């Protein structure tokens, strides 16, 4: 059991960054946003909710051309639906790859248009795709690692039980969800 990180760097795949899209930058952001929303739809359709701890543990956001998809809760890699031992994260990883491929295809089209418009002034996109991660990204990753280590030392549910000793942990107030999906 462990934390999971199935983030996808779409920019690296196509050798570009947001700045390369010129006036199509907003369109490129929409493409990434659409990929993120599609992933979230899948996540919420299949992720079981008992305490909500592992659900809330998901970080799902877009950072430039990176789909950041990760969960620091220590048993996130183990979560599965009742009656099926296959970890849900395997399914979500495959879905994330599908959405990333679709996004990459659309982004390549936008890049080509941006390049045509820029004409002779067009930058060499491929050479600019590799870049150092931003400071925020480095710090964000450090905090994610630290959060995962904290959950490894003392489990998420153990923390909840310590925090709310007099309250039932789990399904007491939860709306039962359909587990046959």
């Amino acid at each position: 059991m462990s934390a999971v990180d199935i983030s996808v760097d779409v920019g690296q795949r196509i050798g570009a960054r947001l700045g390369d899209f010129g006036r199509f930058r907003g369109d490129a952001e929409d493409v990434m946003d659409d990929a993120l929303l599609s992933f979230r739809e899948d996540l919420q359709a299949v992720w079981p909710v008992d305490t909500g701890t592992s659900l809330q543990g998901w970080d799902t956001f877009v950072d430039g051309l990176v789909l950041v998809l990760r969960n620091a809760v220590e048993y996130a890699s183990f979560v599965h639906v009742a009656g099926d031992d296959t970890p849900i994260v395997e399914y979500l990883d495959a879905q994330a790859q599908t959405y990333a491929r679709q996004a990459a295809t659309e982004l390549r089209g936008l890049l080509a248009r941006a390049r045509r418009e820029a004409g002779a002034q067009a930058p060499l996109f491929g050479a600019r795709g590799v870049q150092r991660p931003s400071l925020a990204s480095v710090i964000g990753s450090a905090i994610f690692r630290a959060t995962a280590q904290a959950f490894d030392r003392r489990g998420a549910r153990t923390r909840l039980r310590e925090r709310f000793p007099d309250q039932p942990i789990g399904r007491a107030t939860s709306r039962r969800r359909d587990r046959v999906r």
Partner: protein
Amino acid sequence: MADVKVTSNASEVAADLRAAARAFMDTIAAEVAESAIAFNEDIRGPAPGAGKTPFRTGNLQQSGRSTVEGVRFQYKNDARPYSPSNAEQGDPKKFKRGAESYASFAHFSGAEDGQFAADAEDAFNNRFGSDLSSRAEAAIIGLLP
């Protein structure tokens, strides 16, 4: 007699500085992580709907994250509304593309509009304010020789 020449190995110094910076970052990150976990417990509570976060589909709950932007810690919730046409037709839920987040409006039944945002702000200020700064200060002092 000859010149006096003292040479430092710049790459070793740089490596030492990088290691120190990494240790510093990891130490602060550990304190921020503890605050983030406690904050999430504050707003989630012991079970879905038992904390400060209204719970129907889990969308609001999983859309929140406490993270770093620039040099700011922040909590952000960008929960998007579902497309009603999908829900009416019984199709799998789809988010309404291009729609604004409803997180700032969210509230428990009977509570005022935006109650969730106000509660989240209180909890955030509590966890990421003086509590974090005093723990981070102690951790930094612990790093000093």
